[in-house]
């Protein structure tokens, strides 16, 4: 499943990131990369942005980006 299929409070381990290389590099540098644990904190109204916690930081992802990140539920 991807981040958009998680609910607030759900944890998961990133399995795969399917997006263009530059965007992938940005996500990796923010510790949203395979093997890292993330937690979905909040979904904005109309499910447009997803706020996650990764390596202690709060990262906001747009819906299209969140759909690119596949996670295994913890």
């Amino acid at each position, binding site marked *: 499943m991807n981040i958009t299929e998680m609910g607030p409070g759900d944890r998961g381990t990133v399995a795969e990131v399917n997006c263009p290389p530059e965007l992938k590099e940005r996500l990796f540098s923010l510790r949203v990369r395979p093997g890292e644990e993330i937690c979905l904190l909040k979904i*904005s109204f109309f499910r447009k942005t997803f706020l996650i916690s990764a390596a202690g*930081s709060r990262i*906001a992802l747009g819906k299209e980006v969140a759909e690119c990140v596949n996670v295994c539920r913890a």
Partner: protein
Amino acid sequence: MRERLQGVEILLVGNPNAGKSTLFNALTGGNAKVGNWHGVTVGALEKEAKLGKFRAKVCDLPGIYSLEGMSMEEKGAARYVKAHENAFLLFVTECGALERILPLLSGLARDGKCALVLTKKRQFLRRGGSLDEETLRRELSLPVFCAEGLSRRALREKVANLIENEEVARSSADAGRGSVTAQRAKRYAQSLYGYRRPSEELSKTEKLLANGFVAIPLFFAALGLSFYITFAPGLLGDFLKTAIDKFFSEYLAGFAGKISSPVLRGFVCDGLLKSLGSVLCFLPQIALLFLFLLLMEESGFLSRLAMLTDGVFQKVGLSGRAMFSLLMGFGCSAAAIMTTRALDDKKIQKRVILCLPYISCSAKLPVYLTLSASFFQDPFLAVLLLYALGVGLSFAVALFLKREAPPFVMELAPLQIPRPGFLAKSLYFQIKQFIIKLGTVILAFFLASWLLSSFRWDFTYCAPDESILASVCGGLKYLFAPIGCCDWKIAYAALSGLVAKENVAGALSMFYGGFPYSAASAFAFAVFLLACSPCVSAIAASAKELGWRTALWNALMQTVSALLLSYLVYFLLTGGGIYLLLLLIPLFAALLIRKNKDEKIHGSKRGFSSKLHR
């Protein structure tokens, strides 16, 4: 005998919003812009500082997440570090983001020439994190210290000692082994001894401000309140403005009125007091608006707004990250244009730069308030209307230029109570900049305008309509004739806004005291100023990003379209709306009839029958 100082170069490297600019200001005594947003610093900033026995060139770089960064400023910063191979690197990181700096350390560390500076430790500890500096020092094999709580003097001494000790260590190190620090950073990233991440849970305030149904109304309420306090009659902004206005127009003008020489009296009253006073009296209101912007940014609320409004920005081909630049546009267009470097690519940057002139900067405030007296009793509503119109136009332009919106990825700045000291310092800096601008560019313009509008070609004193300026600018009177102002002085005032927008208010005061035409003309004129090209500083900032040809072309197109828009607004306000309606109704009807005819011939593309007969 004076000791000769050794030269050294220091680069401040780290993720965005780590505290590099704050450290830069502490080491150099500089005034680099700091803020609670990822992407405040957009270009390398250099300043000399005396650190112990070293004469250091300290360089503050934009934040980098990785060496192959996405944004233009990241790419520039990474290139800068690689180009300055002999520089001492200070890796600055907030304690909560230590894991993220490790790849940068591995990629850029230079044995004997780097150190790790930790910031925001109190916040990190409050959120349940823990960190042992000694362990970090040992594991990474490089100096580590926490900058939080250290005075400027202590910081300078610390950095000076570091450089001195590292110079000694480096000279005795075995250079052939490759970067030990880089290898250790990679190893440490696997284990993270002596480090515990802060809690992931959102605090109550964070939960509230991440909720769109709370945060968005809160933003509009705060905006409305700040406008109300700033512009409503009798409240703080209006009270201070009236006080300064009275000081110039009654007290100082009273003295100047006693000058016997008509030329000198004209110079002091018209050239100086009326024009300068008409701009300076708005300083309290400009300062209050700046304070609101500072509060938004420093509290961390701005990044939450950017997250919540990304959906809206996506509809017009932008992303929530443009929020920062657009909000900065309410302060200064030139500064806002520079912040667009933090955006992801040139195409989006260009679109945001094209939208920014429509966001009413603080320099337009004096002229809005001067004009609003002609068409609105309550300046609060008038200014609110003009600001809202500007934002609407900005979005309309973004929609017109719409392309695919960029992906939205953004780290949220921590929520914090704005520091009074920081607010006071930033406000003082903005006020100082305004007064310097008033005392130089604007004053020089007013003096030149007064001289040219008070003397004939034979240097005899005269009324403005007989002056040098009248003979040079007389032809401009037709420019605003379609809005009921067939007057070269109005056109001159409008064009003076190209130098600085404040000049418009000053020029109107110098020639008329206020705005002498009808309410419809005043509103149309305000619309022109809202939509026209920004000042030369903003055009220059735009040229730096897009090239002079593009910047000048954009400025010309904006001015021409602003003129046409002002003509349309005047036409609508003076009864032309009815004629427009009479024209549009048959047009719509014709379009509707044509559409129905086409559907009867070719069939509806979305009709239910097409689904059955597929």
